[in-house]
């Protein structure tokens, strides 16, 4: 879920440069210097994303004569609340009355709206300022229109709660009455805009504004991708290659075609690996309703050639990764002399952690609807990356990009899965096969779990040396995991900079001797961004290992962790060899250990860390910097005599800088806690003969209400300084939960969990 469209070309360019390096001579000098020059002025944040930001109020704000303010939201709603969050920012600067604000969804069109790739916890981080400017510009246009109407100086009027007031005369005009005249005025220049003093905020940072989509959701009226209905629409399901890169040798559709209601059976061609987001090779059944298509698919007879990944086996692969981390790997960061320090250490501790593949399992499975009329292809999709999907559809169908429209629906969960456009491409290809007739392709849950872009699988090996005083003197972390880059480029066997920078190399511990390594790992399935991405395995290993070290040193875990972090200071992430820093400027977004300390201190204080607990209960702690925000959690567990685990309470402290929409920040953290419990307790996709073995929620269980923490207490660190840049919110709650939970299990029963999921390890 990271800056997908940016990472890919950057990484490939780097490879090309290395390749050119082999040629030597002037070519080398010229190409390297030009690349270096380009890197001298890197673009950060929103400006580093394709199409950057747009802050034109005419693009984002519409005001009707009835006074209804409609905000066009260009980011995808998948539960993070952006379809209320962006309107809330605009409404505040606009001085609009929240009850008269509506939302409308932009189609995929980045030249018009700015970047729309809704992942990486970036929507408000990157668009808070531009959206404030949109609201302020629209406000000043309304004020100018009122002043012109009354023939008074513009600075004698003021917008207040959906009307413009001339205080001297007591005259007032509503936004609706002014809208038409205001729209004809020039948009004020950016540097003339008067943004509100944050003390005047009425919605930003405040409580009480309900979700704009709440009533539609509660009444079943919200339209998700799967709910799209078009005239004459057909329904499709696809039998896809069960193995990455597998191919249809031949298929027999005769039985399927006998089923009444089946319209057509067609093959969807595959794309050679690495296939990016292109659909897998498969056979589609197109029918008059979904059920008929599902039934007919069962009647297909398909011979598959599994290809090179047909022997992928999770048990054997784990052994491969374990062997890899026990040998030297590519050194990513090195400080001091680790080997000498290890030799001198009074005590050595080592541990290996295993985290399996997991599947996103969005409640709304992938789906999309497409039709092609008069050479114009329209796609309706629950897409996190509609511009990327638009470009991919255009390329695949051989259309100019202007002839493709991607309508963004509500997403029934995203978590990174729906930034890949394969399902949208399938719909477009099938509509083309049906001469443009509308086709909706629906993935069943089995399809979703078999053909995800899976969260990576990893083995993390940690070693440390402790001196006689209990101080950590040496730290070695070797992390082996197939990389997301494997879907884009051949022979990608190392974690990319954006994966390393998620808690592997950028560990701020004050240990004099450190080494981080990354041995090779070959991908045998599609690896993709899953909420928090590599922060999940890295934080799990590091934060569990710190608990192990604290125990070895006979110290309290919190005190030991704070000592490792050391005093409050602002670290330039590049000094940790992290040149990525979640795409943000190292100057604007230094790694602030003071903020990390504060969330740890807050979570532990609120959880009454150190309190006496009855037998079988324990508290566990973990902290992580991710998406330029700071998170710490204390999980309380109770383990019964038969190993049954309950979670009475979780305290999670969070510092994302200024909090724009406190209720949605809380809800994101509540959700991250439960998703973290889910992946820790039961999340695992395994492969045999290249095939994912889990089919549905009986074999890939998600946490239910009965297993969820009884109480989740979210502690938002107050940030009253609105000049501070915003941090991410959607993802950073997740990485701390699994390690805090497993550290709590250790506190409760003395058992170390070094492989996920916990599963039945407590009863064994």
């Amino acid at each position: 879920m990271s800056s997908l469209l940016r990472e890919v070309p950057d990484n490939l360019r780097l490879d090309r440069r290395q390749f050119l390096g082999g040629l030597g001579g002037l070519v080398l000098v010229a190409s390297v210097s030009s690349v270096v020059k380009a890197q001298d002025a890197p673009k950060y944040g929103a400006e580093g994303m394709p199409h950057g930001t747009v802050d034109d109020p005419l693009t984002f704000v519409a005001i009707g004569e009835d006074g209804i303010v409609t905000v066009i939201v260009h980011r995808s709603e998948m539960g993070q609340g952006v379809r209320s969050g962006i309107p809330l920012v605009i409404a505040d600067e606009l001085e609009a009355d929240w009850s008269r604000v509506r939302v409308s969804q932009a189609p995929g069109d980045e030249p018009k709206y700015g970047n729309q790739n809704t992942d990486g916890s970036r929507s408000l981080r990157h668009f808070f300022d531009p959206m404030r400017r949109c609201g302020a510009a629209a406000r000043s246009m309304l004020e100018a229109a009122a002043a012109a109407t009354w023939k008074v100086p513009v600075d004698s009027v003021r917008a207040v709660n959906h009307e413009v007031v001339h205080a001297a005369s007591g005259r007032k005009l509503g936004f609706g009455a002014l809208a038409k005249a205001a729209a004809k005025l020039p948009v004020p220049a950016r540097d003339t805009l008067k943004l509100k003093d944050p003390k005047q905020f009425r919605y930003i940072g405040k409580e009480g504004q309900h979700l704009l989509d709440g009533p539609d959701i509660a009444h079943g009226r919200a339209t998700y991708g799967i709910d799209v209905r078009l005239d004459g629409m057909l329904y499709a399901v696809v039998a896809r290659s069960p193995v990455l890169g597998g191919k249809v040798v031949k298929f027999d559709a005769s039985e399927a075609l006998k089923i009444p209601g089946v319209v057509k059976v067609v093959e969807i061609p595959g794309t050679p690996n690495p296939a990016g987001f292109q659909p897998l090779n498969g056979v589609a059944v197109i029918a008059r309703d979904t059920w008929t298509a599902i039934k007919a698919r069962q009647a297909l007879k398909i011979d598959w050639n599994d290809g090179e990944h047909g022997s992928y086996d999770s048990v054997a692969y784990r052994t491969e990764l374990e062997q890899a981390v026990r040998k030297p790997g590519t050194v990513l960061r090195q400080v001091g002399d680790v080997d000498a320090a290890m030799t001198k250490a009074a005590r050595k501790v080592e541990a290996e952690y295993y985290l399996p593949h997991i599947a996103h399992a969005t409640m709304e499975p992938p789906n999309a609807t497409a039709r092609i009329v008069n050479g114009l292809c329209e796609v309706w999709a629950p897409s996190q990356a509609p511009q990327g999907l638009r470009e991919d559809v255009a390329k695949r169908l051989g259309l100019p990009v202007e002839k493709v429209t991607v309508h963004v629906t509500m997403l029934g969960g995203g978590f990174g899965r729906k930034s890949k456009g394969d399902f949208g491409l399938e719909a477009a290809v099938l509509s083309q096969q049906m001469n443009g007739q509308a086709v909706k392709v629906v993935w069943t849950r089995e399809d979703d779990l078999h053909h995800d872009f899976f969260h990576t699988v990893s083995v993390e090996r940690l070693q440390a040396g402790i001196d006689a005083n209990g101080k950590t003197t040496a730290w070695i972390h070797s992390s082996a995991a197939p990389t997301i880059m494997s879907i884009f480029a051949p022979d990608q066997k190392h974690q990319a900079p954006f994966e390393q920078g998620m808690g592997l190399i950028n560990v701020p511990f004050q240990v004099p001797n450190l080494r981080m390594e990354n041995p090779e790992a070959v991908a045998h399935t599609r690896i993709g961004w899953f909420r928090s991405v590599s922060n999940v395995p890295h934080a799990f290993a590091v934060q569990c290992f710190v608990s192990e070290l604290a125990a070895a040193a006979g110290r309290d875990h919190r005190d030991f962790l704070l000592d490792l972090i050391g005093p409050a200071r602002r670290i330039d992430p590049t000094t940790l060899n992290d040149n990525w820093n979640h795409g943000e400027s190292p100057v604007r977004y230094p790694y602030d250990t003071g903020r990390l300390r504060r969330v740890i201190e807050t979570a532990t204080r609120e959880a009454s860390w150190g309190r006496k607990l009855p037998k079988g209960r324990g508290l566990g702690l973990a902290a992580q910097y991710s998406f330029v925000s700071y998170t710490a959690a204390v999980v309380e567990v109770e383990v019964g005599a038969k190993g049954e685990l309950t979670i009475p309470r979780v305290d999670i402290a969070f510092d994302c800088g200024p909090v724009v929409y406190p209720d949605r920040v809380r809800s994101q953290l509540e959700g991250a806690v439960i998703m973290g419990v889910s992946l820790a307790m039961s999340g695992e996709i395994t492969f045999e003969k290249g095939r994912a073995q889990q089919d549905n929620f009986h074999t890939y269980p998600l946490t239910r209400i009965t297993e969820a923490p009884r109480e989740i207490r979210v502690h938002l660190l107050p940030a009253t300084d609105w000049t501070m840049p915003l941090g991410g919110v959607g993802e950073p709650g997740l990485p701390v939960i699994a390690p805090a939970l497993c550290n709590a299990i250790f506190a409760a029963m003395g058992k170390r969990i070094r492989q996920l999921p916990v599963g039945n390890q407590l009863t064994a």
Partner: protein
Amino acid sequence: MQLDVNGKRLEVSATDDTPLLWVLRDHLGLTGTKFGCGMALCGACTVHIDGEASRACVTPISTLAGKKIVTIEGVSVTKQGKALQDAWVNLDVPQCGYCQAGQIMSAAALLDDNPKPSDADIDGAMAGNLCRCGTYTRIRAAIKQAAGSLEKKP
């Protein structure tokens, strides 16, 4: 055959084995009832059949002759449904919202049976409804708020 959905008798031309879910969604255009698993494992498709919370994804329409079906689109006519929908909005329960129709339908059947459910009662009634976004603590709170509001104005 005919189905009685939200108080209306509707003619349906699907085959007998078609699960109610797909008839509601594909044939009748009632898309509030969601597809999540097809195996009665997630509860996204929960509707009421003669007042009982039922999983539409595993209920063939052949079993529904003469039965009264209520979906999320029709549940607000019941006082439990209305109170729950209000509480859901008031507490901003949803994140992505996809599972929430099923959650509300399960909760409405619970409150119809048991106007003052305990935590254990809520667990029992709601254990079949998955939420991947993790809104369970708010779902519990909203059910209690709805129960409280119904107690005040029965």
